[in-house]
C-alpha cells in the first residue's frame, strides 16, 4: 500500500473530516546517475567555495537573494522560518465552484485524499454531496511549509485534491507575441466547415490507456537487457508479425466438415438478404474464418446461442 505523505483534515463550516494525502502521480521518468567512465565510481557533488577551493560545511550555508549581479541580500534560515505560513493540519474549503469554471491550465499536481481513522462516513457524505451538486471545493492548505491553493474534486469513489497555480504564476499569452489577430485571419465558412469535418472524422473518446511513453519503455527494456549482459544494438527491434491467415484453407476446411456432416446438406444459404440497405459501419460480424496460425484451417462454426 502506498504511504501517506501528509495527514490532516478537510474543514468547512463546522465539519471536520480527517484525511490522509497520497500523491496520485507516479512519475516514471527513468533516472540515471553520473559515473566516472574510467572506474565506474559514483560522482559526488561537493559545495565548494570557488575562491578558496575548500568545501563549505552545511551549517555555514546561508541563502542569498541576488539584487543585482554580485549584490545579495543575505537571509538566515531562521528569518525565513519566522515568516513561514502557520503549520495547520487542515484543508480549509473556502468556496464551492462548478468544475467548468476552472481553466485546466491552473491544475498543477493531483493527489488522492483517503479517509482518516473513523472518518469513513463523513468522507462518503462529502464525496456524494460534491457529486450530487457537481461542485468542486476550493481550499487552502499548507504542505511542507508552502501554502497551496487546491481544488477538492470527486473522482469515482475517491476525493482528489489538485494543487492549483496562483493566478500570477500563469504566463499571459500576450507575452508570446506572434499570435494571429482573429480579425485578420478570418476563415471562410467553407474553410471552417471543412476543418470541423476533419475534426469530426478524427473524433473519438479519450482513452488514457491508449497512450504510452514509448521512449521510457524502450529505455527500460534496454536497461534490463544490458543488465542481463546482452549487447545492445542501436537499431530498432524488428517486429515478427504473424503470417497472413489463409482464408482459402479455412473455407476448404469448412467445406470438408460440411460434407462430413451429411453430404447433401448445404452449409447455409439465406444469409445475404439481411445485409442490404443497412448502415454498413456497424454490421455485426457473427461468423469467423480462420485467423492467426500458419496452417490456419480452423473455422469456428456458427454459434446458434449467440444471436
Amino acid at each position, binding site marked *: 500500500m502506498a504511504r501517506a505523505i501528509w495527514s490532516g483534515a478537510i474543514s468547512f463550516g463546522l465539519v471536520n473530516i480527517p484525511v490522509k494525502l497520497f500523491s496520485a502521480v507516479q512519475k516514471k521518468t527513468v533516472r540515471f546517475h553520473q559515473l566516472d567512465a574510467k572506474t565506474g565510481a559514483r560522482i559526488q557533488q561537493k559545495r565548494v567555495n570557488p575562491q578558496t577551493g575548500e568545501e563549505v560545511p552545511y551549517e555555514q550555508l546561508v541563502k542569498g537573494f541576488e539584487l543585482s549581479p554580485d549584490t545579495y541580500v543575505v537571509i538566515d534560515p531562521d528569518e525565513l522560518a519566522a515568516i513561514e505560513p502557520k503549520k495547520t493540519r487542515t484543508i480549509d474549503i473556502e468556496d464551492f465552484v462548478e468544475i467548468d469554471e476552472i481553466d485546466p491550465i491552473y491544475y498543477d499536481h493531483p493527489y488522492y485524499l483517503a479517509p482518516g481513522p473513523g472518518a469513513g462516513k463523513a468522507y462518503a457524505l462529502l464525496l456524494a454531496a460534491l457529486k450530487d451538486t457537481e461542485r468542486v471545493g476550493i481550499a487552502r492548505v499548507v504542505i511542507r511549509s508552502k501554502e497551496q491553493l487546491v481544488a477538492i474534486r470527486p473522482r469515482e469513489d475517491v476525493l482528489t485534491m489538485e494543487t492549483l497555480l496562483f493566478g500570477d504564476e500563469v504566463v499571459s499569452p500576450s507575452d508570446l507575441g506572434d499570435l494571429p489577430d482573429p480579425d485578420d485571419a478570418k476563415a471562410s465558412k*467553407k474553410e471552417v*466547415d*471543412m476543418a470541423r*469535418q*476533419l475534426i*469530426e*472524422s*478524427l*473524433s473519438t473518446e479519450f482513452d488514457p490507456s491508449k497512450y504510452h511513453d514509448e521512449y521510457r519503455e524502450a529505455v527500460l527494456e534496454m536497461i534490463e537487457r544490458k543488465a542481463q549482459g546482452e*549487447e*545492445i*544494438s*542501436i*537499431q530498432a*527491434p524488428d517486429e*515478427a*508479425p*504473424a*503470417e*497472413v*491467415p*489463409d*482464408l*482459402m*484453407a*479455412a*473455407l*476448404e476446411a*469448412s*467445406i470438408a466438415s*460440411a*460434407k462430413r456432416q451429411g453430404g447433401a446438406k*448445404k*452449409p*447455409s*444459404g439465406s*444469409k*445475404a438478404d439481411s*445485409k*442490404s*440497405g*443497412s*448502415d*454498413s*459501419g456497424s454490421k455485426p*460480424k*457473427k*461468423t*469467423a*474464418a*480462420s*485467423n*492467426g496460425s*500458419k496452417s*490456419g484451417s480452423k*473455422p469456428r462454426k*456458427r454459434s446458434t446461442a449467440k444471436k
Partner: protein
Amino acid sequence: MADRLKAYRAKRDLDRTPEPAGGEGAGGAPAPAGGRFVIQEHHASHLHWDLRLERDEALASWALPKGVPGHPEENRLAVRTEDHPLEYLSFEGEIPKGSYGAGTMHIWDRGTYECEKFRDSEVIVTLKGERVGGRYALFQTGGKNWMIHRMDPPADPSAEPMPEIVAPMLAKAGRLPADDGRFGYEIKWDGVRAVAHVDAGHVTLTGRNGTDFTPRYPEVRGLGDALGSRRLILDGEVVALDEQGRPSFERLQSRMHLASASAVKRRMRDIPVSYVAFDLLWLEGHSTLALPYRERRRLLAELELSGPAWRAPAHREGDGRALLDASKQQELEGIVAKRLDSPYEPGRRSGAWIKLKNHAVQDVVVGGYTTGDGGRAASLGALCVGVHDEGRLKYAGKVGTGFTESTLATVLRELRSLERDDSPFDGRQPPRATRFVEPRLVARVEFREWTRTGTLRAPAFKGLRDDVDPAEVVRET
C-alpha cells in the same frame, strides 16, 4: 596487405561480429589473372548482393543493389566497398544488430573468374559460377559510383526484359458455369486490385489505372526481401483483413486515401494490409500470360508465398457451388471462377473469368449530391450516382445510407472540390436540388437489385475507390 584491410577492420567490432578478422594471408604468389569469386546475398537494411573478387590476397568488393544483370541491356548500379579478407569467400551468417552491415548473409553464388583488366576505375572479368556465367565489366561512372554491365549475350538467350505495366484481366459477372469441372475457383477478394512487380528485392504495386500504390502500402515491400534475387510479376489484390481474417473493403478505406507517408505509418499499426496474389504473369525473363491458368497457378504455388503481409491462397478445382456456399456462410463478397485452360488476357473483361457474388455490389460514378436534413443538415444527404451505357453516364439513383462520420467527411471533402453547374448525367436527371459534380469519383455500393427502369434498389455506400477509372464503370449485372 595490412593496409588494404584497414578500412574493413575500422568499420567492425571484430569481437562482436562473426565475420573473419583477416589473417596473415596465404603468402603465396599473387594470383596472376583471376582467382576465386563469391556473390553473397545480404539481407541488410536494404537487400543487396555483394560481389567479391579475389585479388592480391584480399577481396575487391562491390555492393549490387539489384544483383548481377543477366542481360546486356540491363546495366546495374554497383557501389565499391572496402576490400574484405580472403576468409570472406566462405562467410555466411548473421551479422548482429548494431554492427556494420547487420543482417543475414548467405552465399548466392561462387566460383572462379578470369581477369582481363583490373584498373582503379575499370574491371573486366569473366565469371564462372553456378548461377552466373559470362563476361562482365565493372566501371566507374562520372561520379563515385560504378556500374556493372554484361558484355556477353544474355545468359538466357530467350529472356525478355520485364514489362513495365501489365493491365489486369477482369472478370464478367455471371452464374456458376455448367461445365463445373473445367473451372478453378478462388475467393473474390474485397480490396484493391494491384499488379506487383518484384525485381530482385524491389517491389512496385500498380493499380488498375496505372497508379503506383507502393508508397501507400509499405508493408508489402517485405515481399521483395522474401523473394531474394527472383524477378517476377504477380497479379493480386491489396486487402485489409478484419478480426476474423476476412477481407473488408470498408476497413481498407482508411488506408486508401492517405496522402502523406507519416499518415500511412500511423495507420499501418491499426489497419495493416496484406497482398493476396492469385496469378503469375511473368517469371525470370519469360511471360507466363499464354500459359493456361492451371499451369500459372502451379508456378505461383511453387513460390510458396506466405509472410506477414502477403500470401498466395490456393484455388479449388471443380465444385464451385461448395466454395460459393462456404463463402456465403463466412459473409464474403463472393468467388471467381476461372477456366483452367484459359490464358491471361491483360486488360480484358473476359468470359474466362466469371465473378459470382453473394450479394449485389456495383461500382458507380458520383455525378452529384443532395444536402442532408436532420443530423446531416448542411452536409451530405445522398449521392446521385450513375453508370456508363455506351459511353454516356446514365443516372442510377441516390445512395443515402452506409456512411460513417468519417466516410461522410471524406466524401464531402472530395465532392466540394468537384462542384460544377450542369449535370453530367445524360437522359433521366436526379432530383432538382442536386448539386452536380465532375463525374470523377467512383463509389462502391451494395444494393438489392436493379429496378426495371435501371435504378439501384436499396443501395448502401461501401466506400470510395480510386483504383477504377470512372469511364470504365458500367452496369455489372
